[in-house]
């Protein structure tokens, strides 16, 4: 499903975010990305939905080589990927409902389906009562949950979540993790970057540890627990 071959990412200002990364994630897997601040987790994730382009190496998603993608085809690839952004990226001029509905309207879904899906997903993350609020009128954790709802609403083949519980209390965080687990069980591949090691410990999934741009540990095969 996801294949990175000898990938390096050096930002224009010279920051060496990723160095010779090799990573393979199968369809239906659930993978945690962990590592210290600035290790390169978000950069790796941005390569998967082509917000950034690798400086060297190949990134292959669903048998499509992102390095060879025509600009016109980029939206088509992104439609199969749901993303929870670390900085939320909600549209400030749209309400909670509109923000979640938007991701479906982009695909040309009809009005009724859009409405139903949006309401159901907002209920799942516990935000049906904040539907008409604008992002600036939400608490940090509420914004984060809107972002989760937007990523889930299209039932994407791949779900990518960058620190989706950073602003959530334990209860809400566990609720989100349960959602991700359910989605994963229904066949969606999940990649999640996080600092919440107690959650990683609890979930007992594959863990990839990144440090200074390199993969230093990969628990593939073993059901591992990684301490501090």
């Amino acid at each position, binding site marked *: 499903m996801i294949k990175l071959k000898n990938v390096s990412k050096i930002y224009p200002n010279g920051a060496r975010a990723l160095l010779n990364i090799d990573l393979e994630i199968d369809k239906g897997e659930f993978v945690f990305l962990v590592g210290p601040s600035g290790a390169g987790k978000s950069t790796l994730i941005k390569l998967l*939905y*082509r917000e950034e382009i690798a400086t060297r190496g190949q990134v292959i998603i669903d048998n499509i080589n992102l390095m060879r993608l025509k600009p016109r085809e980029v939206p*088509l690839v*992104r439609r199969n990927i749901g993303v929870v952004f670390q900085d939320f990226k909600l*549209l400030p*001029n749209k309400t909670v409902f509109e923000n979640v509905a938007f991701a479906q309207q*982009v695909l*040309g879904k009809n*009005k009724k389906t859009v409405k139903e899906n949006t309401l159901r997903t907002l209920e799942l993350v516990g935000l049906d009562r904040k539907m008409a609020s604008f992002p600036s009128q939400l608490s940090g954790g509420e914004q984060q949950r809107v972002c989760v709802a*937007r990523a889930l609403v299209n039932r994407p083949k791949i779900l990518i979540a960058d620190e989706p519980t950073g602003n959530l209390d334990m209860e809400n965080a566990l609720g989100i993790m349960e959602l991700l687990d359910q989605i994963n069980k229904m066949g969606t591949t999940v990649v999640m970057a996080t600092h919440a090691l107690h959650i990683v410990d609890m979930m007992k999934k594959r863990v990839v540890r990144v440090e200074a741009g390199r993969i230093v540990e990969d628990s593939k095969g073993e059901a591992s627990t990684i301490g501090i």
Partner: protein
Amino acid sequence: MAFDSARYILLQALQSLKRNIWLSLASVLTVTISLILLGSAVLFLANTAQVAKTFESQLEIAVFLEKDYSREQLSDLQKQLERMEGVASVVLTTREQAVWQFEETMGSDSLLEDLGGINPFPDKFTITATDATLVEGIANKIMAIEGVSKVRYGQGILEKLINFTHWLRWVGITVVAAFSFASLLLISLSIKTNVNSRAKEIQIMRLVGASNAFIRWPFLIEGLIIGLTGALVAILVVGLGYSWLLQYIVTTLAFIPVVANQQFIINVLLLMLLSGMAMGAVASLLSVRAYLKF
């Protein structure tokens, strides 16, 4: 594109206009000002051309004849002059008419009597040319005709007048060109600002998988609406303003030649409408383009 998408896109455009209401109004105002300038400039140019043409067409050649021609001789001569190339009209002022005119001018009513019955005036033809540049050539040819004693035309002033009309035309064209350029610049700057203020929005739309067309359409529609609204206001101002001006000039300053051709005015207003919409659309597309590079 499905009906739901089309509906969505129109709603988007309207919503965005409403939520950025001040910026939208600013854009409309810019379009309005620009198009008022454009429309006024075109009308000014047209009137300049009209005035220039009138100036030129009023350049006359005065032909004084030697004394004592009979009526028949005069009318033969008139026909000969009318046949000449470049001659637009020939008007005869006979010696008798000249006396009346002189009496009229001098305020005397007994000139011939005062002079002992002797008429000092020669017969005179007043000739206009089809084109101001032909005047000199025609004058020279007439000079050679037998029986002509003197030919006068504004030798010194003629060149100045031709110069001046050309200069007026040139100024008119410059003004139109400058204002068109300024209009385009201002509209595209205004819409570009509008788009810039939503750079983040566009980026997010791209990240959730919106196609370029899907992103572009609402902005295009928005640009069209801004352009259209601005154009309509400008058309109202220029249309009413010009018709008021025409009214004023025709009743009060009839000696100034104005362009009052209905069809022409409608064409100018249509030009403004199309310019507004086209500029709005083009400016939108150019502005979004920068954000659609993958």
